[in-house]
């Protein structure tokens, strides 16, 4: 049965509760990096990676450090420092292992720290009660991975549409952010359709 629950978590974070289009998290990179498809791919992969790792580490820190010492009110500060450190680490590792990937991701990597979807998934893992749950660590890692995939899906769809939009004839005052938000709204309506799904 656990497999089924994990699958449910994965599907609901990717489609039903998509972090960008239905929970409104992580809008800054969603708007900032969705101009070109290739940079969107790089950003998406980096976010999936950081979110998965962040879910793993924040869960461990919450369960084995914050709870035993009874300092759970420090959650926010602990999580943001973990995420900042993690992003720094990922940056250094990618720089050593694959300079080419580092070049293409370069500027987007440090920005992931202030992506509210990353801190969001860490806090939501705790709020969903995974700490006391059976296989809680696995569940929160799956939720983190799913959230990252959902973010990437929304980002790629948006980048694809915006690349086409370059050629379109848009009223002068709608150019830039306004038309992007209208597209995001239409996409969000489309994603509302998933909420009727029964798993």
């Amino acid at each position, binding site marked *: 049965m656990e497999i089924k629950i994990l699958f449910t978590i994965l599907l609901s974070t990717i489609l039903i509760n998509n972090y960008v289009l239905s*929970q409104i998290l992580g809008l800054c990179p969603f708007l900032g990096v969705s101009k070109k498809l290739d940079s969107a791919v790089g950003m998406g992969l980096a976010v999936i990676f950081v979110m998965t790792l962040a879910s793993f580490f924040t869960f461990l820190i919450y369960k084995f450090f914050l709870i035993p010492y009874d300092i759970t009110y420090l959650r926010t500060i602990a999580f943001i420092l973990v995420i900042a450190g993690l992003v720094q680490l990922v940056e250094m590792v990618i720089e050593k292992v694959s300079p080419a990937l580092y070049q293409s991701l370069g500027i987007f990597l440090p920005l992931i720290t202030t992506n509210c979807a990353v801190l969001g998934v860490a806090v939501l893992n705790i709020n969903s009660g995974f700490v006391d749950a059976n296989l809680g660590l696995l569940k929160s890692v799956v939720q983190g991975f799913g959230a990252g995939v959902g973010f990437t899906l929304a980002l790629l769809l948006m980048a694809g549409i915006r690349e086409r939009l370059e050629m379109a004839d848009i009223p002068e005052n709608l150019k830039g952010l306004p038309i992007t938000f209208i597209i995001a709204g239409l996409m*969000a309506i489309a994603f509302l359709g998933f909420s009727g799904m029964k798993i």
Partner: protein
Amino acid sequence: MNLLRLITDGIWKKNPILVIGIGMCPTLAVSTSISNALWMTLAATFVLIMSNILVSMIKGIVPSHIRIPIFITIIATFVIVVELTLKAFQPDVDKALGIFIPLIVVNCIILGRAEDFASKNSVLYSAIDGIGMGLGFGLTLTVLAFFREILGANKLLGYTLIPGMEPSLVMIMAPGAFFTLAFMLWGMNAIKSRGKR
């Protein structure tokens, strides 16, 4: 530098959401009702003013290469203060705003002002800048919430407007947030381009 100018700049010329385009997530997510918007404004403005003051106080001492982690730690401290205060005195508000209270930490407006303004200016100016930016954030949020609450819940400040009318629920959900902001930005652009002509 004129103190009043700092405040009006925050509201109009350098409005963090409509002009600079940062701090979108809390803006869109909590603007479902005016009371949510006002509480969010209060919480974020408090954090903004306090972090601006503290950052400008320590601006000479902080080594520049570790300033961002230090700023984030300062901001997170005040966010925890807000979080615990709301939990103790306004549990309903805490429930309504939910995850977006801890997420004030990653609100780009606050880190942005710490980095751009408070780390270069005096304590008084930084505090005033915090008030101005907070007002700009709050006004935009309230206008958004005004339209969304009327259209999406058929209510204003919690009171039903037209009894028996079915509100369009989509305005309360994510799509409504995107559309309302799109129209606000459109209006803003229209006003600006008219000024240019």
